[in-house]
């Protein structure tokens, strides 16, 4: 298949995904399971990464602000802006593309090669709708929460880094994070997160659903899914930034 054919097949897949669930009761059950698998189980890694990235941004900014004419509160300001605008939505999404994306591709791919998807289709169940729609809804609901958490923890991580390294004072940092708060930036970050979350699930599910062969092909599909999801996220990040902030 050419890349153009893959893009076409991806959109045809979306048409099948966004159909009315065959049984709402089963859909709600699956949705709660997916929120647990794809959302709650990512809390730890998101909190860990958010906290330390915030710390690193604060330290790097502090080390690069050595002119006495630049106020120290800019360290807090830069940490807050970086976390909200870029590190929380994009960096966390790329990490989740690896963690959640590979999980989705390998679980759907294994179902494909072990004929579990055939078993669904023979019963007359739309396998894409059954398997993918609850995942899409779960991440669209939960990932903004994860990214907002990463923003808070990143800013907290920056403050903790300052205390531990003595590179800046708490008062300066707090003044910085209170300076020029623009709520639109949070909205921008959430819009990006929703788009990236959609890409993570659908691109990974596409790669899993079309696997043919055995375990080796499932592994290859997972790698491909992570690479393509990351590429699409980076490209969309550029265009969304241009559209929403440019």
């Amino acid at each position, binding site marked *: 298949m050419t890349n153009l054919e893959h893009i076409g097949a991806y959109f045809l897949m979306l048409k099948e995904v966004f159909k009315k669930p065959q049984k709402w009761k089963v859909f709600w059950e699956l949705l709660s399971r997916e929120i647990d698998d794809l959302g709650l189980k990512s809390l730890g890694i998101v909190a860990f990464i958010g906290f330390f990235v915030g710390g690193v941004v604060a330290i790097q900014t502090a080390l690069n602000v050595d002119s006495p004419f630049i106020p120290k509160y800019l360290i807090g300001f830069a940490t807050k802006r970086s976390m909200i605008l870029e590190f929380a939505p994009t960096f966390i999404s790329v990490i989740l593309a690896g963690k959640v994306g590979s999980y989705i591709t390998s679980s759907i791919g294994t179902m494909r090669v072990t004929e*579990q998807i055939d078993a669904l289709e023979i019963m007359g169940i739309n396998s894409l709708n059954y398997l993918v729609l609850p995942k899409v809804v779960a991440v669209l609901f939960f990932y903004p929460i994860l990214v907002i958490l990463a923003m808070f923890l990143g800013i907290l991580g920056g403050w903790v880094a300052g205390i531990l390294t003595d590179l800046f004072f708490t008062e300066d940092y707090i003044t910085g994070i209170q300076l020029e708060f623009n709520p639109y930036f949070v909205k921008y970050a959430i819009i990006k997160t929703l788009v990236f979350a959609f890409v993570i699930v659908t691109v990974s599910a596409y790669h899993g659903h079309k696997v043919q062969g055995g375990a080796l092909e499932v592994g290859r599909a997972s790698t491909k899914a992570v690479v393509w999801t990351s590429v699409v996220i980076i490209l969309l990040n550029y265009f969304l930034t241009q559209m929403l902030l440019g």
Partner: protein
Amino acid sequence: MLEVKNLHKSFGEAHVLKGISTSFEKGKTSLVIGQSGSGKTVFLKSLLGLHTPEEGEISFDGRVFSKLNQHEKRQIRKEIGMVFQGSALYDSMTVEENVMFPLKMFTEDNKVQMLQRVNSVLERVNLTHANAKYPSELSGGMKKRVAIARAIVLNPKYLFCDEPNSGLDPQTAILIDNLIREITREYDIITVINTHDMNSVMEIGDKIVFLKDGVKAWEGTKEDIFRTDNEAVVNFVYSSKLYKKVREAYLNDK
């Protein structure tokens, strides 16, 4: 009756099914046999609607599958039970959940009613006390039993089995064969089995269809298979010394 008329299926240049016509009756276990690459799996997947044939007709009790709308096709799919070669049980579900799955999707039964039905089919396949186990905790024979239970839980009219004995020891294989035959008669359903297993042919072959290079080369009953002089069938079925001797003994006896 399940009728197949002039079925053709190709994949690119490869013409896999070349005009197969046959029929399968209620209450009988029909076996499709043939060498690897003879088109058995494509034939079965075409019957199941997983492949769309380029030419020909598949009719389920007079309902021609290709002429039905999506709703009618879905209705027929609800009447089909399928036992896959690798069982195809859902890894994330327990035995009970696997068997209950079709009930959850297609009936309005409450939990108690569903549990009653699940337990009765699990009892029917002689698999009690395994409700809470996951597929990874089951032996090959147990997985096949769960797959059969799941296939019959909605009282299907048609049961399809893809090599139900593969990977099983001879004793368990015979038990599974007999279970499928008993269920076919008890539920009065049309059963079509894809197999390589000659024990199954001798044991439960009410009707046998032999495919060779995508063509129906022979069909008959398990008794006919002893008497046939069709060279392709004889070479395939009696390829082992044991079966050659069985055939000689049968013919001498007659």
